[in-house]
């Protein structure tokens, strides 16, 4: 028993490690292997090492496909992500701040609207109809505001929760010192929210970058795609060119992977907020 127990624990650990790595990592290894193969070899879909490594050629080909569609898409996705997340953070921080600090008879109703945004599925065609009326359908600007609208609820909840940890005396002191509401918020309160702001930025960036449904509906067409749409477009075009399709998957997985490597803790903190009784 005395010598057996650590040994058994060690074996159990090793077994778990192998099983989980197989289930959760091998599919990604498969993507990498496919992206390295020639067209004929990738078509076999075999889980095997490539006989000839042509990863770089595949990547170059994917970028060149359809008149450099993927290059445009990476630029579009970058603009989309940066712009929408910036607006989301500023707007949601302002809402979270006032919502937590000022209790009026509207507070309950506003909380209800925030929760509704998490539950209600957006009405697609009427949204297109509104965007068309504003002249924003099929434009990147329109899509940016769409992402802001659908990301607000989650962001507001995080900011509101964090506000309750910032002492009221701080903003009251700023007001007594003669600061107006804008200065109080942007120079005193907002800097204190930095840690939750980083959480919101990281989580929402991954969310927006990976979003497929909204670009599909509100920014259709090949010439102005986002990265997720290139995958969808290539899926039909590259039916027989699995090497290129998987090279594309590989490329668009890199930004979330970097986020994960650098901000793992922040992402997990943001996504588990509300799980613990607070």
């Amino acid at each position, binding site marked *: 028993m005395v010598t057996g127990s650590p040994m058994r624990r060690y074996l159990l650990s090793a077994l778990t*490690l192998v099983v*989980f790595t197989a289930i959760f990592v091998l599919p990604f290894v*498969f993507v990498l292997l496919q992206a390295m193969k020639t067209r004929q070899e990738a078509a076999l*879909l075999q889980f095997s090492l490539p006989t000839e490594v042509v990863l770089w050629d595949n990547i170059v080909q994917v970028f060149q496909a359809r008149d450099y569609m993927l290059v445009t898409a990476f630029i579009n996705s970058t603009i989309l992500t940066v712009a929408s997340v910036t607006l989301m953070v500023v707007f949601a921080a302002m809402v979270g701040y006032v919502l937590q600090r000022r209790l009026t008879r509207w507070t309950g109703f506003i909380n209800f609207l925030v929760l509704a945004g998490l539950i209600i*599925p957006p*009405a697609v065609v009427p949204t297109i109809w509104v965007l068309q009326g504003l002249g924003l359908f099929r434009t990147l600007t329109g899509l940016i505001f769409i992402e802001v609208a659908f990301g607000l609820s989650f962001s507001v909840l995080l900011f509101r929760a964090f506000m309750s940890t910032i002492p009221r005396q701080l903003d009251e002191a700023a007001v007594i010192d003669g600061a107006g509401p804008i200065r109080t918020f942007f120079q005193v309160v907002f800097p204190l929210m930095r840690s939750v702001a980083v959480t919101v930025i990281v989580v929402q960036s991954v969310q927006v970058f990976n979003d497929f449904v909204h670009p*599909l509906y509100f920014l259709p067409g090949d010439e102005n795609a986002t990265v997720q749409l290139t995958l969808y477009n290539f899926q039909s075009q590259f039916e027989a060119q699995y090497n290129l399709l998987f090279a594309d998957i590989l490329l668009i997985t890199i930004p979330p992977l970097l986020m994960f490597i650098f901000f793992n803790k922040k992402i997990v903190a943001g996504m588990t907020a509300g*799980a613990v009784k607070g």
Partner: protein
Amino acid sequence: MAYPAWFYLPAAVVYGVLFIAPTFASFYFSLTRWSLFDQEFIGFGNFVQFFQEPALVTGLTNTLIYGPITSVAKVVLGLLLALLLTSQIQGRGWLRSVVFFPVLVSTIGVGIMFQALMDPRDGAINRMLGVVGINGPGWLTNPDLALYSVALVDVWKGVGLATVIYIAGLVSIPREYIEAAAVDGASAWQRFWHVTVPLVRPATNTVIILSLIGGLRTFDLIWAMTRGGPGFTSDVIASVIYKQYQAGFYGLSTAGNVVLFVIVSAIVVPLAWWLNRRQVEY
């Protein structure tokens, strides 16, 4: 006034114009025959069609299957994984990362990846099964199986989120409770069922609600893997909405949106209320 109401304004304008207004407009447009060029009020015709046409009814029932099964699977597997990953096991950090990473990967990418892995003849899954003498099924080509295969991939991709939520819940349980139960002679199973499970309740509620909302509204994964096929056997409401939109039946598509809205709120709102009411105090 340090907390001016106009701080709500920028958010309210974007949210009101692009989310609330379309939601209200959808109630009207769902009662019309609506194309690019004109609209005509037809009463409840779209809804009647939604509950009569087999292709649309399939989408409805599939949604009611897909949402609950993915949600339950994520609750059970998420809790088990979280228990494993908070135990004394070696390599916890690596395991947590590995289980969580798929959450951050593009859904379409995951869909294409598994479409290849689940290929009935050449796919790695069936080849592996073949090695041990099992004749693997047509995961995505068998009409009876396609929806469940997609649900399986959904769980693979999403269980990491449930796991980290449960880990956060588990580490917040004071150790004394479990130790006290052990001192009182409770077996490992009793400690799990009578101490851990009730105390991890807030995490369970979050996982149920989040995954149910996601599951009922699901679209990308199904669209990437089967396009609702074979035939329309793996269609869900969200994919029906897209198909009707593509076909130019805007009124019908919007009626689908209203149906989805009603289903999601009729299930999620009472459930969330009930779950929160039953929370244990400690």
